[in-house]
């Protein structure tokens, strides 16, 4: 069996294990075993992939495997990875692992909760390893559907409304995707669904590309929080339980950016070049608009959701610049945003679990009460505002430098506008830290609260180590994703 197929297979096995599990202890042990296996496997995959590359494997996709699944439509189950997908798989494995520990304290219906959680991971991993458009779409749907139940059942606040809104908006996006995928399939001669082969043929007529590019870009863009299709994000995140927020913002939103890059731009390169300006304007708006909106929010999760709109906007902004540097930056930003937003949501969940409020007006002086969580929150905040030494800086600087390489007034102007987000980000992050962590605690109820427990500490520490690791020595990660990015970009430019 191909090593890649293990990634969706393990969560499936975990579901089986959970189904058989009889008590919390067994459920926890199934989850820990499975999540650790995924994490170890992902690390092994990274090392193995680097090893293969070093030994001279220059094929675009490595570890490929393919078999026919449904002949009339040429649907294959075909898998393979390049540096970008390897990086995304590593990210997903880290988030699944830490998400497990972040929901350690969950009490109600944990068996079902974790089963849906695992199904969601099946979709995520399957999406990143797929090379076949249809299989990819199928995994995409698998990742979306459990979200409805996870938020609708285990959520908080206006959970039914949020779950419905999120699902409907994302489903709207995937309806566009399905049309777009079929469009590509038939446009390319209806002989194959394989992404690499379609790209190789490069035979979709321009008039069709013009139609399918915006449709697919918007389809994935909804999940990537593209303005004005981002409004599911604040409500959805605010209602979702901690681990779901982590996985959703940390990984699922990356499906959007990854799909835009791998499908929309790679397969429809001519239209991408012609129409990119429209989306560059939209993403520039996302970047600044999300940051400004975050400045006046009062709910911790809303702040982070808008911050995600801004940071994910930067991902799409960077891939639309269509040069290797900016696109490398986009992948780094996906990793970086995935890690730090997961950290944020984990911490917010932990704070909410203790104080039962996420309203920043009701929180203050947490530093004295829960120093560990507060210090981690500060670190997450600093990563978010792009402090050197943490991952955000590396990603943002690569993006800005890449974007600046496009030498025309339009690109220059949008780059400078996007750069201003570093100041606005500092404003809302420091406002938040100043309000909830510093100062003296005014609520006597909060004085009795305790700091993080071991499982929470584990989740948080792993994320921080990953953020600092990426921030301190970005070279290996940038090398890892280099070739994958170059393949796509050079295909677009030719």
């Amino acid at each position: 069996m191909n090593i890649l197929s293990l990634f969706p297979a393990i969560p499936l096995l975990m579901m089986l294990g959970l189904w058989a599990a009889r008590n919390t202890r067994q459920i926890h042990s199934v989850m820990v075993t499975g999540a650790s296996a995924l994490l170890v496997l992902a690390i092994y995959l990274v090392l193995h992939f680097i090893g293969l590359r070093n030994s001279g494997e220059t094929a675009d996709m490595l570890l490929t495997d393919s078999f026919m699944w449904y002949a009339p439509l040429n649907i294959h189950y075909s898998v393979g990875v390049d540096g970008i997908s390897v990086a995304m798989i590593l990210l997903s494995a880290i988030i699944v692992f830490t998400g497990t520990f972040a929901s350690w304290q969950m009490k109600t219906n944990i068996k079902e909760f974790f089963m849906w959680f695992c199904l969601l991971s099946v979709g995520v991993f399957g999406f990143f390893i797929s090379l076949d458009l249809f299989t990819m779409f199928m995994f995409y749907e698998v990742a979306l559907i459990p979200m409805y139940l996870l938020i609708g059942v285990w959520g908080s606040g206006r959970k039914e409304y949020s779950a419905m809104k999120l699902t409907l908006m994302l489903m709207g996006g995937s309806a566009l995707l399905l049309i777009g995928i079929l469009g590509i399939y038939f446009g390319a001669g209806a002989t194959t669904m394989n992404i690499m082969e379609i790209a190789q043929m490069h035979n979709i007529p321009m008039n069709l590309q013009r139609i399918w590019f915006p449709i697919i870009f918007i389809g994935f863009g909804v999940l990537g929080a593209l303005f004005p299709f981002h409004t599911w994000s604040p409500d959805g995140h605010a209602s979702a339980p901690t681990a779901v927020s982590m996985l959703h913002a940390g990984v699922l939103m990356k499906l959007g950016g990854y799909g835009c890059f791998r499908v929309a731009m790679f397969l429809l390169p001519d239209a991408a070049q012609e129409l990119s300006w429209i989306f560059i304007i939209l993403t520039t708006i996302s970047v600044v608009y999300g940051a400004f909106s975050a400045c006046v929010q009062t709910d911790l999760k809303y702040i982070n959701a808008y911050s995600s709109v801004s940071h994910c906007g930067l991902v799409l902004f960077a891939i639309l610049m269509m040069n290797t540097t900016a696109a490398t930056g986009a992948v780094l930003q996906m990793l970086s945003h995935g890690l730090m937003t997961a950290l944020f949501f984990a911490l917010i969940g932990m704070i909410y679990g203790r104080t039962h409020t996420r309203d920043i007006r009701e929180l203050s002086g947490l530093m004295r009460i829960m120093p560990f969580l507060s210090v981690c929150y500060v670190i997450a905040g600093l990563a978010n505002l792009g402090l050197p030494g943490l991952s955000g800086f590396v990603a943002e600087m690569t993006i800005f430098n890449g974007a600046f390489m496009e030498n025309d007034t339009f690109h220059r102007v949008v780059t400078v506008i996007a750069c201003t987000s570093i100041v606005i980000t500092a404003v809302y992050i420091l406002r938040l830290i100043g309000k909830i962590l510093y100062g003296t605690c005014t609520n006597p109820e909060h004085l009795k609260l305790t700091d993080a427990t071991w499982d929470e500490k584990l989740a948080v520490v792993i994320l921080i180590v990953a953020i600092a690791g990426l921030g301190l020595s970005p070279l290996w990660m940038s090398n890892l994703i280099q070739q994958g990015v170059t393949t796509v970009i050079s295909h677009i430019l030719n």
Partner: protein
Amino acid sequence: MDYTVLILLLPFLSFVLLGLLGTKLKPVAAGAAGTAVTGTVALLCYATAYLYFSAGRDASGVFPQVTAWNTVWLPFGGSLHIDLGFMLDPISVMMLVVISTVSLMVHIYSFGYMKGERGFQRYYAFLSLFTMSMLGLVVATNIFQMYIFWELVGVSSYLLIGFYYTRKEAIAASKKAFIVTRFADLGFLIGILIYGYYTQSFSFTPDSSVMGAAKTMLPLALGLMFIGGAGKSAMFPLHIWLPDAMEGPTPVSALIHAATMVVAGVYLVARMFPLFIGYAPEVLHITAYVGAFTALYAAVVACVQSDIKRVLAFSTISQIGFMIVALGVCTSADPHEGGLGYMASMFHLFTHAMFKALLFLGAGCIIHAVHSNEMSTMGGLRKYMPVTHVTFLIACLAIAGIWPLSGFFSKDEILAACFRFSPLMGGVMTFIAGLTAFYMFRLYYCIFWGKENKELHAAHTPHEAPGSMTFPLVFLALVTLVAGFIPFGRFVSSNGQAYDIHIDASVAAISLCVAVAGIALATWMYLREDRKVADSLAARFSGLHKAAYHRFYIDEIYQFVTHRIIFACISTPIAWFDRHIVDGFMNLLATITQKSSWGIRQMQSGYIQRYCIWFLGGALGLVVLLLVI
């Protein structure tokens, strides 16, 4: 010179270690570890300086630029990459000595000053972080490395200003400091992007082959970088964060907000000096005007402040203005031909770091003794604190520019450079030098002489600070006494050639007279117990006095812009727009779907009669349709 990696690595490890262990470590142990590391770093810096300068000049008569090590940290594709490295040249070596010395003194001093404070370990961890960042900034081999450490310096400053994080003022001040400098850094970043794109490298000395094309964009790039420098170095109108930054512990003010971090902007201009002179002299002169205005503004404000740390803060802003002016008035790279200002600026940076650190540390001893920053709680302290008194006086004389203290020599060179640029500039700067002498001695008399606050002192007798605090004072006072005689031009000059400092007799005479006049005026107004003259002047010009006391309302303008414009006119409407228009549209779609499905649902009512009517109506319609056709 591979060992130089330790100069950055040791403080970093110390930060990580102290940060991770935190309160598990005894306060004394944490302090000792931090101090030991800084002491080692200082020794390494001195050794580096000795080795570097004793290696001598190369054939062309300059100290060569040595890259001790350099490694690619992050490639951007093409020829652009961020390197991390360690570069030695006269100014970076000079900065290594300044930073490590002041940092070591502050580490020692903090033992006494911060004794018993909650968060002692955290304090030393942050000091280590700052030391590492500042050292990394000055030895940067390229502009992007400088930017990286620039940001790290900013965050250490943020963390240290907000050290007393339960105090409202400290939170606000730390936030303000970070955001104002971040705003300036935006300019810096865009400047770097332009610079990198057009010169195709982040190196300080770009390849001459690209300069032809880059020439037109360089003034813009350098101007934007100067905005970043102006933010860190508190140039008007980006100075507003510095006075508030005094909310941090006083030793931090001495280290970061007087001696080292705030001169980063000056250092940046000096670092880019060859490019400024070669490609953008007009931008360089703009910096001179900005610097001169800042120096004047800050000196005027310093004359009326009542909080001793604020007086010192404005004095710092004013003195940094002097350094920027000195760089800005340079018209060539030859120290004999209009490049004197470069050497003067670096010399003043050096001497100012020592005596301003001394002043802040002295102020720390005083605050420690009377538990307040306000002048009204002081007066007559000379009896209680002899060591602080004498060292403070030395520093005051130095900053006022009295021979033979260090400030005299460096300030004299600056004034000489200004007079060479234009008599007006020279005149203005001399006037500001006089103001400096006046406000410093006003401060001195108000603290150590004049009317004693007997009630307060009876309740709590002021006492001299412990040895750990007075030792740094004495050390820095000694440096201030002798530093003026260092043949500074032999080490640092605008073109690298040895330059012998010679005192311009006429300039020296004028500046001494002005300084003495300033001191005399302050003596006349503030030495006595009653301050009739000062009070009547304040009453006579109450409008001006009030405006200056409120720093000419610049802070209020900022408040207005941030709260009334950015928050109220941009963020709030955007957030509203998002919730009501964008999201409202999505909700509208959902509502329309629901309503129309409700409408359609009405048709499937289940009543046979209704179906019959629809059926009949339909059939009739068809018939009519057929007949018409």
